């Protein structure tokens, strides 16, 4: 057990066989994360945000691997002009990874099936220069209202917000035209957010992991179906559980027309694992990347890039 973490079953202990330095992993998981904001480049440049923070006397450090991220030692400035103007969005460093890996371009058709509350949606919109078509979907009405208010504050105008089960999303209202890119950032058991939410593991059960893995498979399969050949799907979670990561990729590699492709990450990471608790997965799952909290002093994260082949 690690101090501060509410974890009656020692869930993190389950992942020790996957980790290179167990002690460093445990220590990092028990340390709170600094507040981080991402610059909303629809409304301001990083230099303008820096000038705005200077203006308001808010101290910050620039994050070296991502020019649009600022660490805020004094916490998240919800009550600041930078926030009021929609110039910044509170977003953990690793959470800024998958939209960059997806790399949407201005004018493209992009789908964000599990979009709420909108940190990655607003980032995708900015990467698209707020042009093209960005469909942001969620199944939960309360979470959709958070998504809408975040998109509005950020001045996102290329987004269509929809409410449906991402496993059955229909392209019919869009004349059946497939997407260029899809960001499948699924609901998960969230172990990687332990530094932000010390009680993230309190409700953890293996049954939940297995249940949510079924949902993840359905969402990823549908995403691959709706993407044009040559298009890109990024799959991401904030869990360490191979059941929700490599096992989901292994499933879609068998059922869908897609392959895993290697990609560059500006953060230190480890390859996906091809074996877990007696199961073996397609060896290309090693092209996925695992980000552990102790390597870059961030939250935990999992990210894979798929190219659709037919």
């Amino acid at each position: 057990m690690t101090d501060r973490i509410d974890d009656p079953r020692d869930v993190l202990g389950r992942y020790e066989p996957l980790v290179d330095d167990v002690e460093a992993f445990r220590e990092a998981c028990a340390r709170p994360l600094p507040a981080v904001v991402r610059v909303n480049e629809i409304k301001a440049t990083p230099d303008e945000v820096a000038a705005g923070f200077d203006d308001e006397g808010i101290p910050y450090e620039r994050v070296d691997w991502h020019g649009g991220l600022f660490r805020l030692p004094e916490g998240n400035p919800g009550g600041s002009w930078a926030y009021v103007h929609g110039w910044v969005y509170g977003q953990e460093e690793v959470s800024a990874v998958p939209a960059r890996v997806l790399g949407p371009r201005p004018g493209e058709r992009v789908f964000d099936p599990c979009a709420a509350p909108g940190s990655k949606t607003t980032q995708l919109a900015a990467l698209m220069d707020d042009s093209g078509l960005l469909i942001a979907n969620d199944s939960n009405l309360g979470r959709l209202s958070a998504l809408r208010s975040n998109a509005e504050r950020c001045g996102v105008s290329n987004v269509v917000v929809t409410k449906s089960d991402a496993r059955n999303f229909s392209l019919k209202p869009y004349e059946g035209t497939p997407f260029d890119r899809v960001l499948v950032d699924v609901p998960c058991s969230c172990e990687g957010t332990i530094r932000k939410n010390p009680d993230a593991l309190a409700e953890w059960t293996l049954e939940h992991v297995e249940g949510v893995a079924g949902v993840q498979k359905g969402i990823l399969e549908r995403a691959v179906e709706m993407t044009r050949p040559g298009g890109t799907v990024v799959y991401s979670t904030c869990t360490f559980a191979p059941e929700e990561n490599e096992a989901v990729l292994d499933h879609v590699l068998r059922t869908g027309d897609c392959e895993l492709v290697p990609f560059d990450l500006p953060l230190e990471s480890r390859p996906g694992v091809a074996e877990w608790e007696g199961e073996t997965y397609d060896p290309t799952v090693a092209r996925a990347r695992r980000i552990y909290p102790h390597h870059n002093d961030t939250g935990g994260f999992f990210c894979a890039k798929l190219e659709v082949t037919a």
Partner: protein
Amino acid sequence: MAENRPHRFDRLPATPAEREVPGRATREGVVDFWAERYGVDPAVWDDYTFWEKGADKVWAFAGDVPTPIEVEALGMTFLRTGGEHWKPTTDAVQRFGRHATADDTVVDLSRERARHFLAGEDQELDWDGDWGYLVVRHEFGRRAEPIGVGLFVHGELRSQVPKGRRRKL
């Protein structure tokens, strides 16, 4: 004749000649409004489509989809065309107010006045420009940045910042 329905977005007709629903705004009317009142170059809207959800609520979308469409949101809330005077939304002014070049409908506040405005307070203002809905800005991050919409009447600037967006900074 077609009618307005909730949760359904209909693309605004291009010109009055193509209008099916009586009284509905047109694309031409929306573009002219921003140009004439706030000095926004019509080219800003080249890639935008305008939509109506329910009566008199115009949304701006930076792309196009087939019309009509039933979705939760399409782009951003943009303009109220119901009253005698059309009223831009806070979202629209924060996003597009930087394109406003008119000097009689754009007002710059001091930081202290901007705080009162953001808190939703009305304030007396010595202003020689137009009455009606103004783009309200202040100097922030080395830029004149729009905060929201103010209604100027009888020497008073009335904050139109919606309750959920008001802050005491």
